[in-house]
């Protein structure tokens, strides 16, 4: 069953078509990677799903039939769609714990909040830093805190925008493990990444974007073998 369906989505900036009739379906329980050269429209896709950018045409539908293009960012987040941004986006003036409590979202039942924060702290390994200001964390820790904020809300759809950009190899491996623990049968995960080894490690399937359209969809091994993919992306 599809948890997230993107249906002939077009996003236009001035005369530039960032997404051009893109269609995509992510199943529940799946980890999908979206790859493509710079300017292929990867981040624009996430912006459209999270409501930051309004599409010119097309629909984005959740498993329960909710059309996200009709809602604002906050309503989309409350519907269970969460995103980790490319640049670590945590609140530097708040502590790790406070960041996580905000991550739970406004709909979080008060009784459940403490448990969720504790769980997120444990999964991200930030227990020792719970009282520290987020602004004082190292780059990798910020990335994990952001993933923890996503986790704390128990989302149905997780969008990860380059989660390992700028991380060391050890941190990358640790992030791959973290993503593996995020996987749940009722949850769809969409990852955007440039690091092919990382994609191969975490994703079930990959979608290759090129100039705002789907170029290829299938397993990573097949993608590496596909002539068009090699031409536009891998074979650079």
């Amino acid at each position, binding site marked *: 069953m599809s948890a997230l369906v993107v249906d002939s989505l077009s996003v236009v900036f001035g005369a530039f078509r960032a997404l051009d009739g893109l269609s995509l379906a992510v199943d529940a329980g799946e980890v999908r990677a979206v790859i493509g050269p710079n300017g292929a429209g990867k981040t624009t896709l996430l912006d459209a799903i*999270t409501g*930051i950018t309004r599409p010119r045409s097309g629909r984005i539908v959740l498993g329960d039939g909710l059309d996200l293009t009709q809602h*604002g*960012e*906050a309503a*989309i*987040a*409350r519907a269970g769609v*969460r*995103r980790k*941004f490319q640049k670590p*986006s945590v*609140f*530097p*003036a*708040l*502590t790790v*714990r*406070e960041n996580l*409590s*905000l*991550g739970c*979202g*406004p*709909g979080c039942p*008060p009784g459940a*909040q*403490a448990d969720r924060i504790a769980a997120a702290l444990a999964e991200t390994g930030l227990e020792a830093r719970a*009282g520290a*200001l987020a*602004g004082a964390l190292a780059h990798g820790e910020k990335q994990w805190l952001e993933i923890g*904020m996503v986790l704390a*809300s128990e989302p149905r759809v997780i969008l990860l925008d380059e989660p390992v950009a700028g991380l060391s190899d050890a941190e990358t491996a640790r992030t791959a493990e973290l993503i593996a623990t995020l996987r749940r049968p009722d949850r769809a995960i969409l990852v955007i990444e440039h690091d092919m080894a990382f994609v191969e490690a975490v994703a079930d399937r990959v979608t290759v974007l090129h100039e705002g359209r789907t170029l290829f969809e299938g397993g990573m091994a097949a993608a590496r073998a596909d002539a068009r993919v090699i031409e536009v992306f891998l074979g650079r």
Partner: protein
Amino acid sequence: MSGAVDLSPRVPAVRRIGPALGSDPLLASLVVLVLAAALGLVLLQPAPYLVNMVGQLAAFAILAVSLDLVWGYLGILSLGHGLFFAIGGYVCAMHLLAHAYAVTGTAPDLMQFMGWKSLPAYWTGLTSAPYALVLALGLAAAVAFVFGLASFRSRVNGVYFSIISQALVYVAMLLMFRNDTGLGGNNGMTGFSVLFGWPMGSPGVVTGLAVAALLTLAGVLVGAKVLVASPIGRRMLACRDDEARLRTLGYSTTRLKLGIWCLSAVIAALAGLLYVPQVGIINPRVLSPDLSIEIAVWVAIGGMGRLGGAVIGAVAVNALKFWLSAAMPEAWPFILSGLVLAVVLGLPNGLLDLAALRLRPASLKPTSLKPTWLRRGGGLR
């Protein structure tokens, strides 16, 4: 800062006062000081002009706190807070005139000025102090709501919001300068003779007003502190630092900003309400854009994002102004501008930097000043 405070929103507000004040010794001592000053005024009975000055300073401090709430904690710099202050002030003045007319039967100057035989319909009920209070606060909230909704809904942010709010207060000033508004025009309203049946200007009334202003200040400080230490306060800081991010966490930042904005307007109106009977006059000059910017200056000088800083700034600047604008009126604008430049360039956290009372103010870390608002808008074409 609020690590010791219970994060759960279910805790009743009264039980949050202790922890909230405990986390901010500066503010706690200020509250104590304010209460002590109120007691001192009652017991020591200083000269009326001194009592009056303390009362006015308290009103200004309330005004500064109202602005700090939206600027320091929510990142919204209003350059139009004088509008809400004036709403409180004008309604209060209307009440005082209506009340005095009812008690003494002497028609106020305003009626002669306008050629009225009796007070027009919109003055109905203003003889009642509770109604006037509700009207002042309700009107401020309503104006703030309409303006805030229009601005926040369309995501007018940062300096854009600042200059539009400045235009708002400027337009209001032009409006009130007109004589046909029925609110005194250029001359404003003055000649208040009676307050709750007591003759205005008698030592008891002067002390009563000052004490009321001080108690209100203490109450506003405690209430605002509880608010900013609560989960809502964390959302405010998050919204200030990265509003778009907070929205993608599911929070309606429009509603959050609108709520705090209206609350701030109500507090500013309260300040105006307390200020006018103490100075005995209100006129459109309180609506001048310069006065509204001055409020921001008090907060910046004291230290924004700290409620105590707002109080210190308002009191320090205005005490200096009381003294210097009498002693050397020519020099005051130069001193004020020098003070602003010194603080802005040298003391990013205001006088609190000088006092070295740094309990990690939540504000003004360099990262938090990333001009996110700069992202909007196109290139130069």
